């Protein structure tokens, strides 16, 4: 080691780090019948369990279930970790499209990253199937003819969870908001419903993202506002820490209600029913919803990481790829690869139907709509087995669950 000089060593280390950040390189040569799907999500941070490797497992399951291989379509999957950073996500997306001939960018949680990818995919005329980002701007002011927003968005979460809380008497709110595009959109959309129902927003606090682990200061501020509902406009690890610490500080014991505006089943699993019981949340998928979702879960479970049950972001990836591959098989690979807009238009022209997400349709603004479910987390006594966490409170029909087509300011609708 002694003869190795420091500069060479640091150079080597830097090169290794840079290599680690790059997506796996795929060969340039490509058979004429191959489509490439790039799964871009959080493989290493606080959102890993709600998308991450679980989304990849669901994509592979979709490829298998779609049966396109037997029809002569070859599907390749590449995986990238955007680390919740728009710059990293943009770099990977450009490389995938420009160098590696990737046709579809899939999943992309973290709204700030999703909005960046949205622009790049549109410039390159490829396809962006977003399952795990929440901002309703993807089908609003920033809508794109190359993008379909598949699984949920801030408007639908706000309407379902926020609406239910207001109806139950929670007419004064204080928001704890993750300080980036997603949190802002969720706070904005929920505030809209609270005010429309005659309620008031007493205040909000913006928490740095990522990197906030202690929410006690923010919870105490929320409490001293005397609001009846504390709206958590955050997700994943942030939501878990907020709820855990709210229990510690006795927030709910004083009658204040917590509204977890975006909560996933893996969050409930991590909190444990003891802490999470009684919370309500909105999802477009639950593994134990019906026979079809249970059958899907049974098939994909062996390849899910760490025994996780799929959540809605991951199930959305399955559903999106099922529909995409069906369209590819109908159009033929060369036609499906030629223009992202054309393929997306074909996908919009027919309803979606698969075991995970059931039946749905895709609107002109790129919003996929389906029934939306409001769940309550069971008490430990009510839960009958592993991952038996939700009871269904209410189902909002597809036509009412999402933002009306004309209200999003999407240029695709006006023209």
């Amino acid at each position, binding site marked *: *080691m*002694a003869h190795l000089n*420091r500069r060479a*060593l*640091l150079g080597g*280390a830097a090169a290794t780090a840079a290599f680690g950040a790059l997506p796996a390189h795929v060969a340039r040569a490509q058979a004429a019948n191959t489509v490439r799907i790039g799964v871009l999500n*959080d493989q*290493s*941070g*606080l*959102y*890993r*369990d*709600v998308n*991450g490797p679980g989304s990849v497992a669901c994509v592979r399951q979709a490829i298998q279930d779609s049966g396109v291989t037997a029809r002569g379509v070859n599907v390749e999957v590449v995986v990238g970790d955007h680390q919740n950073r728009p710059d990293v996500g943009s770099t990977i997306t450009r490389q995938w499209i420009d160098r590696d001939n990737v046709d579809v960018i899939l999943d992309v949680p973290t709204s700030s990253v999703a909005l960046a990818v949205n622009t790049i995919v549109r410039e390159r005329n490829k396809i962006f199937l977003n399952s795990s980002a929440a901002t309703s701007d993807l089908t609003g002011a920033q809508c794109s003819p190359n993008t379909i927003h598949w699984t949920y968005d801030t408007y639908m979460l706000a309407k379902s969870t926020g609406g239910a809380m207001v109806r139950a008497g929670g007419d004064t709110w204080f928001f704890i908001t993750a*300080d980036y595009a997603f949190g802002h959109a969720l706070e904005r959309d929920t505030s809209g419903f609270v005010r429309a129902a005659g309620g008031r927003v007493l205040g909000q*606090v*913006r*928490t*740095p993202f*990522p*990197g*906030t*682990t*202690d929410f*006690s*200061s*923010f919870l*105490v*501020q929320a*409490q*001293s506002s005397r609001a009846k509902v504390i709206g958590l406009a955050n997700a*994943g*690890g942030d939501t*878990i*820490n907020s709820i*855990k*610490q709210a229990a*510690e*500080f*006795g927030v709910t014991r*004083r009658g204040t209600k917590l509204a977890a505006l975006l909560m996933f089943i*893996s*969050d409930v*699993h*991590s*909190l*444990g029913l*003891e*802490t999470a019981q009684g919370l309500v949340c909105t999802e477009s998928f639950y593994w134990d919803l019906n026979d079809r979702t249970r059958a899907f879960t049974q098939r994909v479970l062996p390849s899910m*990481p*760490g025994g*996780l049950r799929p959540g809605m972001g991951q199930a959305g990836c399955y559903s999106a790829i099922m529909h995409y591959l069906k369209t590819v098989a109908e159009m033929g690979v060369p036609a499906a690869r030629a223009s992202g807009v054309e393929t997306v238009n074909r996908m919009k022209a027919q309803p979606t139907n698969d075991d995970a997400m059931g039946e749905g349709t895709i609107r002109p603004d790129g919003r996929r709509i389906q029934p939306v479910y409001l769940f309550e987390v069971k008490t430990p006594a009510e839960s009958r087995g592993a991952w038996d966490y939700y009871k269904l409170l209410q189902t909002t029909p597809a036509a009412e669950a999402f933002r009306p087509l004309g209200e999003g300011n999407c240029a695709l609708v006006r023209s």
Partner: protein
Amino acid sequence: MDEIFGIPAPLLFGQLLLGLINGAFYALLSLGLAVIFGMLNVINFTHGAQFMMGAFVAWMLLHYFGIGYWWALLLAPLIVGFTGVVIEKTMISRLYKLDHLYGLLLTFGVGLIIEGLFRNQYGSSGMPYRIPPELQGAWDLGFMFMPVYRGWVVIVAIVMCLATWLVIEKTKLGSYLRAATENPALVQAFGINVPRMMTLTYGAGVALAAFAGVLAAPIYSVNPQMGANLIIIVFAVVVIGGMGSILGSVVTGFALGVIEGFTRVFYPEASATVIFVVMAIVLLLRPAGLFGRA
């Protein structure tokens, strides 16, 4: 006296208290770092991972063996401290003769590997770990609701910091350690086994990190990235306090916790950055840190 700068006074008292609690974690973690840097001249970037391991070992003890919080408080630091001894013996001890940077790169890499392994095994959402029954509940202080457990954390952290400071500054063992840092060859000539002392010092620093991890387990989600989130702040604390200064790291840890707490009221968006602003100012005015010797 009802309002200070437009903020209700009770809210500010609450934030002062919460700031002290967070400061307790900063102090405990930066204490371990300071001990390791002061004695070994190694910047231990594995510290965050070792903090996380402490929390995970506590969870494993409960989950696989049914061993509760109080035993975990003792066992987890011992177990994680032992892994520290192994890392020091097999890897770090080979780098003492080289520049700081080598130790930094090595420990940084080891930290990444450990976090990656835990992430592969346990995912990112984390594991539930409950507050022990003896420490559940809360006191109503009038101006805020104070969980008993948080009070316990502050007290234990202060006791631990004092004990460490006493051992290093006031005991014979501590004087050997300090002498060995100044001139290892001379101390060895007096018949003291310096390499073993270095190994045990590293193990003790790591055990302190694991101890903080066990304390954190009931408050934060026990997840693989919990240390990475904290460690950058803790490094800033060590730099502000003065590298290797034990008193400096403890005082700075608590002080910065309080500064961060107030920022969360006045301008919450900046609460993640305020510590680095303080760091930049301190480095400009006192490059060796507040308590460091230039």
